[in-house]
């Protein structure tokens, strides 16, 4: 073997060693603080680990699928599940639709100061959820809230937004859409800008109206972004927690805004039913996994 060849061998070995060393801190952190806890979560979910076990782990018993059986007979769990699906299935599509509308508006050819509008629309996304939930709690105040004042101008209301079980979830959805439509809007705008303007001109010359242009050109161009946005939005919305924590004192009124994550938090961290809480978390995982796979499959089917 020539000197150059040997050099290359040792150099590639050095590179491999460096590569492994460079990813080692990240992998170690992920292993210790994510992989191990996730595996432990599966194990915990099969036990009755509770407040006594926190003091003395020896009292823990293996219960198999017992926690899941208890869950299935727990009306509060079903309530939380139903609320979460309400939030995801109504709030998610609404949020994506508003984002798409805002993106089309902001990106329209005639618009001046595009950057300014984009910045304004995006501002709620970067702000702290707890703080805006506090603000909205007062905007929704039945007597002094800005929203009911505006409704009164139109001769409507007053609505007891966060105090009425029928209105609490719509109120949470409205705030969530306000908070995050800017995020998806930015992604849609990037997609819209990747469509060359000449295609639209050609379509106009062929006599295509605005609606036809939207259906035939814009929507197909946005399809990859729609998948991404759909999955990201769904996954985020399934993790509803901060809004009910701050706005409805943890899921009220009458559990109308109790979410799966809130239910897990209360079971696990407030009442220390840790095994049971871990089982709730696994149900959330399963739902998110199925939801993601379904969206990806639907998208493949359409292509």
């Amino acid at each position: 073997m020539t000197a150059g060849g040997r050099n290359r061998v040792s150099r590639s070995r050095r590179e491999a060693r460096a590569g492994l060393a460079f990813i080692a801190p990240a992998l170690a952190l992920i292993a210790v603080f994510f992989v191990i806890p996730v595996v432990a979560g599966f194990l915990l979910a099969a036990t009755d680990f509770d407040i006594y076990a926190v003091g003395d782990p020896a009292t823990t018993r293996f219960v198999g699928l017992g926690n899941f059986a208890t869950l299935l007979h727990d009306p509060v769990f079903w309530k939380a599940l139903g609320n979460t699906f309400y939030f995801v299935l109504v709030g998610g599509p609404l949020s994506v639709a508003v984002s798409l509308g805002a993106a089309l508006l902001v990106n329209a050819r005639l618009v001046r100061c595009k950057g300014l509008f984009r910045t304004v629309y995006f501002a709620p996304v970067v702000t702290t959820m707890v703080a805006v939930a506090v603000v909205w709690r007062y905007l929704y105040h039945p007597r002094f809230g800005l929203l009911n004042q505006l409704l009164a101008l139109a001769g409507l209301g007053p609505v007891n937004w966060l105090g009425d079980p029928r209105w609490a979830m719509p109120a949470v959805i409205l705030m969530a859409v306000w908070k995050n439509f800017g995020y998806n809007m930015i992604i849609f705008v990037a997609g819209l800008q990747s469509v060359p303007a000449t295609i639209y001109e050609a379509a106009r010359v062929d006599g295509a109206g605005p609606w036809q242009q939207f259906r035939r050109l814009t929507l197909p161009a946005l399809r990859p972004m729609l998948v991404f946005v759909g999955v990201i939005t769904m996954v985020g919305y399934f993790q509803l927690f901060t809004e009910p924590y701050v706005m409805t004192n943890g899921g009220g009124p009458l559990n109308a805004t109790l979410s799966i994550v809130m239910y897990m938090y209360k079971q696990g961290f407030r009442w220390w039913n840790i095994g049971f809480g871990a089982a709730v978390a696994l149900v959330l995982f399963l739902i998110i996994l199925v939801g993601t796979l379904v969206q990806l499959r639907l998208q493949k089917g359409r292509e």
Partner: protein
Amino acid sequence: MRRWPALVGLHLALGIVAVATLLPFLWMLSASLMPAGEASQWPPSFLPSRPTLENYRALFHRLDLGRCFLNSAFVAIVSTALALLIVSLAGYAFAKLHFPGRSRIYRALLTAMVIPAQVAMLPLFLLLREVGLVNTYWGVIIPALAPVFGIFMVRQYALSLPDELLDAARVDGAGEFTIYRKLVLPLLRPILVTFGVFSFIGAWNDFMWPLIVLTDDRKYTLPVALANLIGEHAQDIELMMAGSVLTVLPVLLLFLVLQRTYVEGLTMGGVKE
């Protein structure tokens, strides 16, 4: 000339959405400057009759929220600085260094992103309790130091670095760590700024995990303190609004200054896939 109606209608729609977006912020700011009780008077007023800073003074003097501000700043700055180091090393290695198992490990990391963080939370809490990290800043910081989306961002960007440049440095006898430090890090600067902004804002705004880990109210980060405050001070609207302004202001300013970088980073994941 036919364009005028479209032009006006378009800007009217944009303006309405802009007002709807800004109104909660404007009201927050305005109410935070009102004397105590004015936000819950009838008829309600949008602007303070005589603007005052007494709510802000109360936050800092009576409620010690300045301390929580510093807690938040410490957590956000330290976790961002450490995450930058960890993520830049890993992202660069996954993009440019050849080692056995590289693509398999990378794919496994991306796949693991479907698992929601909540699955890990209860066991992680028990783990932190064992090692004495519950109710410490490090208990908040350490578990989030290797975000996979950060590794993904840096890798995507690092893929475009020219191999010839790295090879030339190797021929010159530079060690791999020297290449990373002297050559790669400066080239990765734009994406690291983007990730840094993401990370800082994310850490500043984070709520659920700090809420779980921190039990002593002197250690609370601002969002946790604010959520706690509304339990006792729900009637003090003006005070709560001042607290909200204090919490929101740093991230909002950071975004306004670095918005271009932030928005570019945002579209990376969506468009390039």
